[in-house]
């Protein structure tokens, strides 16, 4: 149901959207029932002349079941939701599938630097493509990212991937995504990082294999030329 509001463009997004829906319907039922009983009681037991309130201590087992049964039901729902949350988290954050490519993401006040592995699909080779505030990925490819920060805490957030990971200075954090839809989307910083926090947008370009190869070709040529002129 999240796709009604924002497109889902990665495998993780589908899983998270599924969990969101499960939680939504579970707590939705609770919410409707609880509010229904609540307002029903308010209406039924509004003050009427000559009617005295009942004396119910709620201490006997017989009376307590009115709260202990819902209590057990809450526990049951919690168990289901915990299981769902753990399963999805495991897939999304904990276990990184064997990646096709690795990209490096470096956050700083107030820009994103992306190191793409280039046509050879290996990082730290001469054909790496370094861009600022612009990330190009190939549709249907499993990417691992290595996230670091140069100064303060930032957060690497791609809403269409349902991806969010803080970039913490002093540590390198890995994650992964696998795009499923082409297009251009927003990347944002989601953690307060100073005056320019709102000025950290980056563009995510998810391209088909051909488009991506063309883009890489363009940029590796530029990179190679730059490297050549420098040497």
């Amino acid at each position: 149901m999240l796709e009604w509001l924002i497109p889902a463009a990665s495998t993780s997004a589908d899983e998270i959207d599924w969990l969101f829906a499960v939680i939504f319907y579970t707590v939705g039922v609770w919410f409707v029932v609880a509010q229904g009983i609540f307002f029903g009681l308010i209406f039924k037991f509004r003050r009427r002349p000559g009617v005295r309130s009942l004396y119910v201590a709620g201490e006997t087992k017989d009376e307590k079941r009115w709260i202990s049964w819902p209590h057990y039901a809450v526990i049951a729902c919690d168990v289901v939701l915990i299981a769902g949350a753990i399963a999805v988290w495991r897939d999304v954050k904990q276990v990184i599938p064997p990646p096709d490519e690795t990209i490096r993401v470096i956050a700083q006040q107030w820009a994103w630097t992306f190191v793409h592995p280039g046509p050879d699909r290996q990082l730290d080779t001469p054909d790496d493509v370094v861009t600022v505030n612009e990330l190009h990925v190939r549709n249907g490819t499993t990417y691992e990212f290595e996230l670091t920060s140069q100064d303060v805490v930032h957060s690497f957030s791609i809403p269409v991937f349902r991806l969010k990971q803080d970039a913490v200075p002093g540590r390198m954090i890995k994650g992964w995504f696998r795009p499923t839809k082409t297009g251009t989307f927003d990347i944002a910083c989601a953690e307060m990082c100073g005056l320019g926090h709102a000025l950290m947008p980056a563009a995510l370009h998810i391209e088909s294999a051909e488009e991506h190869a063309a883009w890489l070709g363009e940029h590796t040529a530029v990179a190679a030329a730059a490297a050549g002129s420098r040497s």
Partner: protein
Amino acid sequence: MSSEAVHADRAHPSYVRIYLALLVLLAISLLGPMFGHPIVTLVTAFGIAIVKATMVAAYFMHLNIEERYVWYILFVMLGFVLVMFAGIAPDVMLPAGQNWLHLPITPPAPPVHH
């Protein structure tokens, strides 16, 4: 206030003897590192610190004759500290974990001796 009455009536233990025991423990904790074995040092340093602190609490702070729940209050607070430690240590204490690692730092150079 019955406990006040109990307080006034009870015989004080020999505080000097407890004090001497504490000094002996202090000496042991100083001798511990001389064995050169890390586990011995750990036990003589921190094991004995716990014993000493318990003795001070029990005899000098009179927790041994105080209402029992004061112990509980203090231990619950210690428990919260342990919970805090257990929750934080996997991130701060370990050099790396699942999908993350601390980037290396350069330790400070030895100071220049004048």
